[in-house]
């Protein structure tokens, strides 16, 4: 399917929303990194710079009653589900009114009222948990789905294997994404696995496997659409590998000197936002004026979010004691 016909199908409103969220993801992170370097944040910062197309191209298609379990680099997906930039800032600043109330930091967050599952550090732990959510959706015959995102590194863990297999054998409505940014911290893909793609690795579970250019938001969109439809139709899980580039260190403390310059050059050439803008323009889907307006709006939103995040109240020490157990 050519880009033009996809764009026509998707329609300009959704396309603009996609652009908006990709930019919001990017601008937000550019800004939070500065805040980090200013020494204002207690914890680390993990960025999805260059990877924005994955979360956005997929989560944009969800309905209210669908679920996501994003990875630590899928900020755009959080935004799409309704988490506000302000909430993310409150989270980063460790404030009381953040989604995790200061109990956890950075992208270790979620908001169940928005159907955003929570991230646990231990890589791939969300894979079986997402399957469990999907099991309930299946039981309830809701026609809903769960999107679960993990990095390439996470796919080497046992929980990934067990979760994929369980979802397949129980035919659960879940879509597993591998955000393959070709590195797990400093470890390149070829030191993680002996197959060229994560899709190869995912082929042994009995679910459809696709491998797409993760820097092409339309490619992600199309592949995700099919997988989501399968899930809604009761045809079980799917796996989608999105090949992308981590245009940053592992965290903002990491200068990524172990990444060869060519990698960053290639990633830059394939910048998902620039490419999407070019496509939109080629298809007459967006004007320069609209983009300028959008950028300004996002900048303002991000500034506002940072200010509100910073201004938020810290929790008091003894608040730490409450809520270990549910009533």
């Amino acid at each position, binding site marked *: 399917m050519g880009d033009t016909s996809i764009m026509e199908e998707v329609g300009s409103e959704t396309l603009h929303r996609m652009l908006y969220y990709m930019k919001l993801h990017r601008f937000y992170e550019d800004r939070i990194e500065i805040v980090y370097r200013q020494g204002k944040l207690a914890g680390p910062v993990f960025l999805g710079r260059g990877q924005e197309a994955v979360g956005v191209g997929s989560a944009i298609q969800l309905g209210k009653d669908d679920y996501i379990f994003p990875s630590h680099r899928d900020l755009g997906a959080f935004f799409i589900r309704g988490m506000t930039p302000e909430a993310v800032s409150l989270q980063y600043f460790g404030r009381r009114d953040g989604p*995790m*109330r200061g*109990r*956890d930091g950075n992208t*270790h967050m*979620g908001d*169940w009222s928005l159907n955003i*599952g*929570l991230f*646990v*550090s*231990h890589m791939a*732990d969300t*894979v*079986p*948990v*997402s*399957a*469990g*959510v*999907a*099991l*309930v*959706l299946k*039981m309830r015959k809701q026609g809903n789905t769960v999107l679960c995102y993990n990095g390439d590194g996470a796919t080497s863990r*046992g*929980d990934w294997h*067990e*979760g994929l*297999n*369980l979802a397949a*054998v*129980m035919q659960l409505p879940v879509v597993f994404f591998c955000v393959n940014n070709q590195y797990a911290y400093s470890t390149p893909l070829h030191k993680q696995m002996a197959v060229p793609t994560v899709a190869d690795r995912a082929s042994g579970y009995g679910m459809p496997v696709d491998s797409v250019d993760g820097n092409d938001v339309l490619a992600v969109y199309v592949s995700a659409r099919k997988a989501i439809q399968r899930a809604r139709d009761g045809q079980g899980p799917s796996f989608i590998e999105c090949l992308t580039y981590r245009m940053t260190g592992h965290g903002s403390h990491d200068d990524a000197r172990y990444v060869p310059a060519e990698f960053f050059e290639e990633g830059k050439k394939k910048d998902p936002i620039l490419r999407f803008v070019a496509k939109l323009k080629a298809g007459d889907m967006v004007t320069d004026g609209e983009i300028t307006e959008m950028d300004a709006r996002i900048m303002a939103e991000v500034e506002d979010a940072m200010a509100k995040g910073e201004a938020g109240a810290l929790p008091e020490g003894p608040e730490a004691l409450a*809520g*270990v*157990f*549910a*009533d």
Partner: protein
Amino acid sequence: MITYLEAIRQALQEEMRRDPNVFLLGEDIGDFGGAFKVTEGLIAEFGADRVIDTPISEAGFTGMAVGAGMMGMRPVVEFQFSDFMSCAFDQITNFAAKTHYRFGVPVPVVFRAPTGGGFNGGPFHSGCLESHFVSTAGLKIVAPATVYDAKGLLKAAIRDNNPVLYLEHKYLYRRVKAELNGEDYVVPIGQAAVRTEGDRLTILTYGAMLHVCVDALKQISNTEGAVELIDLRTLVPLDKETILTSVKKTGKVLIVHEASRTGGFAGELSAIIADEAFEYLDGPVRRVTAPDIPVPFSPPLEDFYLPNADDVAQAVRELLAY
């Protein structure tokens, strides 16, 4: 008269009838009825959607139960043997236990853990894994010793909005029996039971060791009213009040558990007592536990390993004489 095992099944069945959100997950629990036949017949009544056979994927189905619990379901996970929880350790301690604290969303999951030795199961089928889990904030732990409690604590665990580790002792499955009139009751989590009252020595125990303690007390003559035997029933959250009230009365404590000594739950009990009841103590806080070795297979070795009535009686005599 029904057995401890049947009481567990009854609790499952009644809760599944009562609440459509309750469902079961585990290896061979469907048509086969589970390795110990605890779930026998349940698939016939509730169907394969609520009695779900899984592959051998302890981490995987534990994680699934967590996800389902977050969705408001009440999954009950059967580990074929409690020992295999070690494969799900990460999901239990990090996802199940920490989610409410971090996220504010309840994770009402029950982990049924067939526990303990006494049947020559060897090092991988006889474990008392509570020692590994008591330090996990956010995880409740219960350990029924009687038929009545087996049913009532399981019901309470299923209705609880938190992950609950339910230690069902394999040795008791078919060895203890009682009349239950089919009534619907819960044994509240967090309440110990005083099994016999006494004023000279408190015994704290739980699970199969309760029966060992009862046997031990039968061996000892002329001690009517001396020993207060407390069945903890819940390890986390602990009924400190019952414990401290008793210890303050008796002044002496013996703690008995089947788990090996170092790092066992007796340590926690001792620490509480040595701090909060120190002024009332008239003697050392003693422990009768298994030694610090894996559970050995061969009968003479396992017999040696497991704390028995003689060991307990001996310790009781020493403490009473102290």
